[in-house]
């Protein structure tokens, strides 16, 4: 006899066991792909066939073995190879996330460095025009530039981390959706729901993109310095012309009228 249908339930329990086993094993496969390394996740059930002795009819003092029946049953055990695969996958996934974080940060740093370069060049030029090179004003301005750069870099590092976390969250959502589809059997409504979820996830992706909004004008505040320095240069020039007209020595003044 091919067993598994004991209990006079016409195989209902065997079918239920097999169904549970399939769900458990498929779920474990999904978790392994997504790099979950919790061993309890990989306690999968396996079907084993056992030879069970068949005894002569009851009522005898010492029932004799009249034959053997093959009986299927399910045992749970840790699927070590699957756990090993999951561990390898986790390392690969983390590496990809790390690369993605660096890529996002590099994208922002590239723009930040360019803006910083332009801002430094402009500020140096304006300081020179204003005759402020080498003074405390230059030190203050450099401190402002450095602070602005560092603040922006911290902000973009956060953005890179947040973006990667969003990707992780999306991947986790994908894992849960797949598991949900495994456990819901052949249910039509859940399948439609899964399809809709997938599309709505795309809408979320678009709105949470790391490039959303771009870098903006980080050194925008230094524009006022430029205007101020231009104005200062103009005033200095006017002052010098006035001094010259009065017969005074405008070259004796090396500072700035307006700071």
């Amino acid at each position, binding site marked *: 006899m091919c067993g598994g249908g004991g209990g006079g339930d016409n195989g209902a329990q065997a079918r239920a066991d097999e169904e549970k086993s399939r769900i458990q094993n498929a779920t474990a496969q999904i978790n392994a792909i997504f790099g979950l390394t919790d061993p309890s996740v990989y306690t999968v059930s396996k079907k084993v066939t056992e030879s069970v002795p068949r005894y002569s009819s009851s009522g005898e003092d010492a029932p004799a073995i009249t034959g053997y029946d093959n009986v299927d049953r399910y045992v749970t055990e840790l699927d070590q190879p699957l756990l090993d695969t999951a561990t390898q996958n986790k390392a690969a996934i983390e590496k990809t996330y790390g690369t993605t974080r660096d890529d996002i940060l590099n994208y922002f740093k590239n723009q930040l460095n360019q803006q910083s370069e332009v801002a430094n060049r402009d500020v140096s030029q304006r300081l020179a025009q204003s005759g402020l090179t080498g003074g405390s004003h230059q030190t203050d301005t450099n401190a402002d530039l450095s602070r602005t750069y560092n603040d922006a870099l911290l902000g973009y590092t956060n953005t890179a981390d947040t973006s990667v976390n969003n990707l992780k969250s999306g991947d986790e959502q994908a*894992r849960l959706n797949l598991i949900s589809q495994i456990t819901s059997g052949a249910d039509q409504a859940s399948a439609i729901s899964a*399809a809709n979820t997938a599309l709505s996830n795309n809408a979320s992706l678009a709105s949470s993109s790391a490039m959303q909004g771009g870098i903006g004008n980080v050194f925008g505040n230094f524009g006022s310095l430029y205007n101020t320095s231009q104005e200062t240069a103009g005033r200095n020039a006017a002052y010098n012309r006035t001094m010259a007209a009065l017969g005074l020595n405008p070259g004796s003044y090396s500072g700035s009228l307006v700071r």
Partner: protein
Amino acid sequence: MCTGLEAAAIAAMVGGTAIKSREESRAAKRVQSAIETGNKNQDVYANQKRDLVLKNLKQYDPTSRATDQTTAQNTATDTLAKAVGDATGGRGTEATGKVSSDYLTGEASSKANELKRSSILATLMGKVRGPTDLRFNENLKNAQFGSQAAGVGANANIQARADALKAQRTGQVDPRVMLLGQLLSTGGQAYATGSFKNPKPQYRTFDTQPGTGYD
């Protein structure tokens, strides 16, 4: 002691009941079998859907996914680089006429540098866009698999309704067999009870003594 006819009546009564019982038992077995067939059919559909999910799962394999991400990044970079390469505007007007060779060299160098800068930015942007584009494509695939799974689910629903109807119909007993059983049972019972309840009357004779008075 019953006669041959009476024994036949009892046999008919028992036989009729047995026929009805067997027909009902067969019907119950047919229902059970139909339910099992229905369950097996549902298992087939559930497995089909699970196979689809596991097929869809392959796109999340970290090794192939890393390759897919690189492909998405390269595609995005190419698209962005092409947009810049095709662009003609943006640059200020060049001086014409008698200009120094230094100016011309500087202008050419500046153009090359800007193109290089744009190319680097396109690469960086592509790398940032790649992971998002990859997930966008994955979600489109998820939706496609979802719609296929919904198709399997729809078939499962249709099959479930058909199987339920089959189970309902196979559960109906054969009215001719039941009628036969009923007739045999009722007829046999009627005859048997008629025979036992109406035996040949036997009379006892009593010697009646008239009373002599009252106390």
